[in-house]
């Protein structure tokens, strides 16, 4: 059997009496676009924070491509190919758009430690930065200071930075929050395209059910830190338990 890309074994986390994850067991296979949904406070963000290394786990283990990464610092997980984007805009506001993408690309190319060579001379890095900018549709803004971009463009940039580290597995925390419809379509097309290319596997946390059901191969439903449903979108749409959790919300149409 293949080793799954990411495997979580009996992961638990509590903040005082609030249980954010309780004995979560999940495996993410390469190439399967997964969405994690659940009502507010279900523990989605906590789960991503633990998997990406921002939060320590209480108990349980995390394996990435077979290697135990439970206690690995963030930057080493990123180096292995596990990255995330954030719910709130998380960019380098005073740097240009180009430099925002350039920092992760330099890291990927192992050029970030060069002390005395002008960064402008790194031709291959420049090429790749332009490629990423093209991809997210910010090529025209490459010399703009990132903090002055529109909110939607900043979100695009955010996704671009996450893509620039060439992750094998990428968590997107509400990737389209605060975007206008045009930007939203671009991001979704990007995700779909990249997912089909097979280099990056996406795991998405989303509130918008249209996006969830149009994109995902697999849907995981969390509630009070417990996985209550895990299957195809049809399974989830049919599930009585999920319906109960989302009671009163018109999401299963």
């Amino acid at each position: 059997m293949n080793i799954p890309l990411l495997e979580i074994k009996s992961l638990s986390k509590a903040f005082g009496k609030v249980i954010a994850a309780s004995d979560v067991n999940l495996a993410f296979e390469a190439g399967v676009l997964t969405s994690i949904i659940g009502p507010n406070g279900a523990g989605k963000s906590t789960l991503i924070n633990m998997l990406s290394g921002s939060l320590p786990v209480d108990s349980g283990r995390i394996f990435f491509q077979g290697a135990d990464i439970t206690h690995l610092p963030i930057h080493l997980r990123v180096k292995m190919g596990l990255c995330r984007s954030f719910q709130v805009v998380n960019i380098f506001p005073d740097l240009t758009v180009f430099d925002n993408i350039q920092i992760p690309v330099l890291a990927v190319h192992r050029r970030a430690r060069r002390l005395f060579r002008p960064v402008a001379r790194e031709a291959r890095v420049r090429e790749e930065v332009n490629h990423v900018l093209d991809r997210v549709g910010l090529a025209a803004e490459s010399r703009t200071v990132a903090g002055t971009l529109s909110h939607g463009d900043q979100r695009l940039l955010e996704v671009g930075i996450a893509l620039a580290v060439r992750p094998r597995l990428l968590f997107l925390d509400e990737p389209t929050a605060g975007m206008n419809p045009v930007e939203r379509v671009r991001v979704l097309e990007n995700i779909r395209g990249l997912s089909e290319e097979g280099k990056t596997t996406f795991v998405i946390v989303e509130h918008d059910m249209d996006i969830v059901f149009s994109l995902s191969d697999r849907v995981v439903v969390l509630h009070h830190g417990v996985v209550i449903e895990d299957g195809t979108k049809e399974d989830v749409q049919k599930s009585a338990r999920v319906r109960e959790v989302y009671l009163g919300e018109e999401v299963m149409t």
Partner: protein
Amino acid sequence: MKRFRTYIFIALTLAGLVAIGLFAGRFVVYLSMRVFILSIFALGYNLLLGRTGLLSFGHAAFYAGGAYGLGLISIHVTTNPLAGIIAGVALACIMALVIGFFCVRHTEIYFAMLTLAFGMMVFSLIWNLRDVTGGDDGLIGIVRAPISLGFVSIPISETSHYYFFVLFCFILTVALIYLIRRSPFGLVLSGVRENDLRVEFAGLSVRNYRLAAFVISGAFSGLAGSLGALLESYTNPFSAHWSHSAEPILVSLIGGMQTFTGPIVGSVVFIVLREIIERFTQNWMLWFGLILLVIIMGLRGGVVGGIAQLFRRERGHAAKSGGSR
């Protein structure tokens, strides 16, 4: 065209600096050397403050490391200033590596307070280790022997000769800092300043980059310390005092910590103003404080940043009113 103008500016500045060494009086030469030394100190320091966004109150410790490293070598081992400077810079680097290792785990006020604490420890060590450091008497009798490179030997005992050596170190520092700021490493440092979490998620260890910036700035502090000790032929514990750590901070602020030339301009302003004010009044700090207040509150981004902004505004007006330039 703009590039051409920059080259001319650099050439004129260099010519001016050489002219000072050749024709100016002893006092001006001495004052210029102090400006150079403070500039080296501040340029290195600003890599940490302006670039990486870390406020250290302990860099005088590394300055003293450079000064005492040179002094001890010069008194006990060899009077060759090159050996002394290398020893001084190496000592400053090691100190920065050890102290930085503990400090870079924290940021902002915690980082600042930790560096302050370590700086005070270094000060009291120097003060109390009388047998090694001479305690409050300091190290006396550091000689400016000729720099011997095997086949040639360059005399620097004359103030005007030493001036050119300090000028050389200053130019070297400017060039190195300029290169570092434009390098991939320099870009990552600004990333650390802007958003350290994001740098972490770019797959880079923020702690290591902070430490590297800390050690590099410590090394330049050590260079400044060595040159300072040679200039005065003497060094004392107050070179490690925390009040001395404030100098590169003030200088960077005056000149503009987000600019490359800020620390240099700041050093000129700091030393020249202080020299002028001290002639008129005993409490120069009061007047100096007032002037600082005006500069910091009036000119956002320091002297260099403020002037650059003025220029930009002027050009903006010219463009709007259809100016032909």
